[in-house]
């Protein structure tokens, strides 16, 4: 298909662009297959303003006789306005944007066309594979192995080709256990805690159904994890009522009698539509210009966003506590095992594991626990908070993760190797990106569509020297200790950097970050080196 079919008017002169932090400017607007390009004719800044069409969440047009106004509400929460001379041009531009921004064919998306000079398609796509990850963890080699049982994605379409499972469980058992788990997502290892020798695993719900079906192989698999003698915890991210109801539709939970030694706890985490609506309400509240504190706090409360943050951190804290304090292994799952389970398991790892708190470690965690583990990014992030389109599978689970990570970093400002700008960058990239990392819903889809051959990997790009500098936390001082977040309401704050990033308030905070950066890197560190050089 040709993009030009969608472009009725490619160029319009004398368009006025209004956007946050800038004076309205007059220039030329150009629509291409993937971008809106606005260039300031003879203007001061040589660089044109570039907007990825994919970033546009909602478009509102107000045509009048001789001109028209288009308001663009973006997935990164920025709101722009274009004043376009000529009603016809206005309508043409609007309709082009509408159709081009909602193209759904993966191979037509911009990452397939983006060819930056600093990256090569020959590079390895992604940071690491299951095998490489396994190879680095020598201490688990006795008890755990890499299974290729899913090499052709036939056991679980949403799992990567290789997963880590108990040594004593063979592939045949895995295949059978997979049939007893929704989407074939049988329990796999995601984290091994060296001090206690216990693990965090994740899966989807068991398909016990109304008749309380059992699966010997699934039971064996979990038994192998706790070795029969110990205790293990299953953290179910649904309420016990929800888990009970899931049986009516073929799902279910692990009953005590079948899974000896496993104790089940329920923590209800919202997902899907509830979470999406929460984000919509929050963004609406943040954009509300009426100046009454009463309405603000009640809207903030009403969005429930911070409650979701609280529940997610608290559940992750519980998982980490089981592992680190109590010395017991944990299995996390909800229903599909592609959303809240990933949220909880990755937050628990950040709490426990200093390696996951470095810049590279954190990106590696995201790659393993979200990209490879099959979080359906394309479905979840098709639209953001402004879209008027009827919701289908959208849910900001990944944004919720980033918010929780921000809360952790706020409470432990020295413990993370990465900085707030990285989280903000990821929050933007997950919705609209030059890179292929967040395309598709699973590893299988990425293979089929050629994402790994024909697009670049965001994570690799972020680890290039100059990017690394920008996204590193200048205050970072590695700690080997667990970082236990406070989940008390006063400890959890609205993430201004994201939700209010287009206000002046955020601007002052960015300035402060720069001062901190200078303070540490320009004044302290070089001095330290100087002293060392002159010493002796």
């Amino acid at each position, binding site marked *: 298909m040709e993009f030009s079919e969608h472009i009725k008017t490619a160029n319009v002169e004398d368009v006025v662009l209004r956007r946050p932090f800038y004076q309205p400017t007059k220039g030329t607007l150009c629509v291409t297959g993937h971008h809106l390009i606005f260039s300031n004719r003879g203007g001061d800044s040589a660089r044109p303003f570039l907007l990825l069409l994919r970033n546009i969440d909602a478009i509102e047009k107000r045509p009048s006789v001789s001109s028209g106004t288009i308001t663009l509400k973006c997935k990164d929460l920025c709101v722009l306005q274009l004043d376009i001379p000529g009603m016809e041009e206005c309508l043409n531009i609007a309709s082009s944007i509408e159709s081009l921004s909602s193209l759904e064919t993966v191979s037509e998306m911009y990452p397939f066309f983006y060819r930056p000079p600093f990256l090569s398609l020959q590079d390895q796509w992604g940071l690491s594979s299951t095998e490489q990850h396994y190879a680095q963890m020598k201490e688990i080699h006795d008890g755990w192995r890499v299974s290729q049982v899913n090499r052709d994605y036939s056991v679980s379409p949403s799992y990567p080709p290789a997963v880590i499972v108990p040594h004593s469980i063979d592939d045949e058992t895995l295949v059978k256990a997979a049939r007893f788990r929704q989407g074939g997502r049988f329990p796999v290892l995601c984290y091994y805690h060296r001090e206690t020798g216990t693990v965090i695993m994740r899966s989807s719900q068991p398909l016990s159904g109304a008749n309380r079906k059992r699966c010997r192989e699934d039971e064996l698999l979990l038994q192998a994890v706790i070795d029969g003698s110990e205790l293990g915890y299953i953290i179910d991210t649904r309420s016990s009522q929800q888990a009970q109801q899931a049986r009516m539709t073929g799902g279910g939970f692990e009953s005590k009698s079948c899974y000896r030694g496993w104790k089940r706890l329920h923590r209800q985490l919202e997902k899907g539509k509830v979470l999406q609506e929460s984000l919509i309400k929050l963004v609406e509240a943040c954009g509300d210009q009426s100046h009454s504190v009463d309405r603000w706090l009640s809207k903030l409360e009403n969005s429930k966003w911070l409650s979701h943050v609280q529940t997610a951190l608290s559940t992750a804290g519980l998982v980490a506590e089981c592992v680190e304090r109590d010395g017991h292994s944990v299995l996390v799952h909800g229903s599909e095992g592609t959303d809240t389970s990933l949220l909880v398991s990755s937050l628990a790892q950040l709490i426990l594991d200093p390696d996951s708190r470095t810049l590279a470690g954190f990106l590696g965690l995201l790659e393993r626990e979200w990209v490879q583990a099959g979080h359906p990014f394309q479905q979840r992030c098709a639209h953001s908070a402004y879209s008027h389109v009827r919701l289908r599978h959208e849910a900001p689970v990944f944004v919720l993760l980033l918010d929780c990570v921000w809360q952790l970093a706020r409470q432990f400002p020295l413990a993370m190797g990465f900085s707030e700008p990285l989280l903000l960058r990821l929050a933007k990239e997950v919705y609209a990106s030059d890179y292929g990392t967040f395309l598709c819903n699973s590893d299988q889809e990425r293979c089929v569509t050629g994402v790994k051959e024909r697009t670049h990997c965001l994570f690799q790009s972020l680890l290039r020297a100059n990017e690394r500098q920008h996204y590193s936390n200048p205050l970072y001082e590695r700690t080997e200790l667990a970082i236990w977040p406070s989940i008390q309401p006063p400890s959890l704050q609205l993430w201004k950097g994201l939700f209010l990033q287009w206000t002046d308030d955020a601007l002052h905070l960015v300035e402060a970050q720069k001062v901190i950066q200078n303070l540490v890197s320009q004044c*302290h560190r070089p001095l330290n080196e100087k*002293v060392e050089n002159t010493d002796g």
Partner: protein
Amino acid sequence: SERKVENVRLIDTVTSRRASVGTLYLTATHTIFVENETEILTETWVLHSLVFSVEKQASTTTGCPLLVRCKNFQVLQFVIPQERDCHDVHVSLLHLSRPEHYEELYCFSYNANSDREDRRKAWDFINLKAEYSRMGLPNHLWKLTPANHHYKVSDTYPADLYVPKSATPPVIMGSSKFRSRGRFPTLSYYYKENHAAICRSSQPLSGFSARCLEDEQMLEAIVRSNPRSDFMYVVDTRPKLNAMANRAAGKGYENEDNYSNIKFHFVGIENIHVMRNSLQKMLEVSEAHFPSMSYFLEGLESSGWLKHIKAVVDAGVFITKAIAEEGISVLVHCSDGWDRTAQVCSVASVLLDPYYRTLKGLMVLIERDWVSFGHKFSHRNNHLNGDPKEVSPVIDQFLECVWQLSEQFPCAFEYNERFLITIHHHVYSCQYGNFIGNNQKERTELGLQEKTHSLWTYLWKNRTDYINPLYRPDHSQTQGVLRPLTAPYCFKFWGALYNRFDRGIHPRQSVMEYLMAIREETQQLEEQLASHEMKILNVEKQQKKSVNLETNMFDRSPAVWASPPSNSSVGLANTPGDYSGLGGFLKSPYQQKEPENSLLILPWPQELRKPTDPDLSTNGDDQESGIAGLSCLSPPNEESAKDPDSDETAYSAA
């Protein structure tokens, strides 16, 4: 006379689970709790003047609980074995915390033996004459008037006041008779860039129709003292309804028809009673144990506290715009002109003038707009046993406004949050003489400068603790006028103050502390560098002579923040919170142990933790407080009782 009760338990009010056993002492000035059987001496000191309320609760089998709430938001719950002892402690503490006379206050006995002359001199550190001359006064527009010498015009005003050059003694006298408590319009802040001025007064005694020619002339004189404008704003900080109600009592507000060249404006800040109740409601929310997010946000909203803070900042912004952008002078008043007026004038000053964003500047500002202009500290902050309806968190709100601004402009303030919290603490502590009494006249009569110490010199001596490491005198945020956003989302709950003793909710690591340590280390490094370079120079000079470099001279002690966690005197445990929501369900083998993995955060400076300055010492049991998350177990089947899976219960009970 010292009272002593043994086997008292101090309950950790944050988790209400952990308790320590020890001995309770009541001295003339402090309540002291000394924990038994600890390797390090663990003491909790509470100054009697900081006690807000003492509540004896119903006896239980374990003893008689006594709840002590402090004005600095510390809450202590003691359980005293014998009801009789509890009764005695209760009565004594009530008596000790509510003195009848100023002379009983702590400042008169605190460090009383120090050199009289030194103490006297220390008071000169903050000098208001110097402050007015810093503003450029007196000049050809404003003059110092002797009208209130010996406090003969207004006994709540300072002796030295600045008025327009053209204001004659009869005009001042006449105007003062037409204003509540004689508080005639006088200068608070002069903006030398454009000659606009912030003036302050009390309400006029206008009733429904009364006029006063001298008062009208007084305002006219203020207009004329700003050569570039032909009118002024009169800002009444009260809600319009309140101001109108005052007219029935023969007071009220200026009639625009009677005063030529004024524009009248209400800003609607609520009165002291509304503020007192609002704080009370907010504290109930902040003290709740394990509240849900919704409970917290709803409670915060219904307390109205942030709305009131916003109202004060909004008023400050209005005045700042009038002065800096329009170049128009402003007269601010409320009823008596010592509460809302003080708030609004001082917030405007902070916004207008970078000087008030420095340590010394804030001291000067509080000294000028609050202390000298007769904010009734002893009434509002409950120093003596008095009318509870006079108590109100007025200066507290000002300090919070400054904090909210500093959160919005992190590089604009030379002082840090701790400075504001320390001032808040001492506004109530009565340890220093600065805030004793209700006006200058009272303070002079009490001989405070002869008999007590000044807080300002103490703060200045310890200023390194109060410096904001992000402050840059040359930063764009620091320069000139601050123009804050006042959208509702700019106002946050100030946990560091209102949950000051609930360490668990604070960030576990502090950026400020880290940067302060870095700054200190940078200084050390610079010194070392200089010393190394000196050495190298020496080496080069001595050339072939054998030089034995003493390496230990350069031994760089580890940075403060890098101290090992084993250093428990400064370490604060970081342990899991209550993630299970039911007070812990896990049977942890680690629960009785000291947290091995405590993560260090920097505590308050040692200076403040020493018993020599006991009022600021925090609960000594900080090192262990976090363990409470696991230490009290609810029945293990509590969770599974609700479980639909029937055989689960059987397992859990086993």
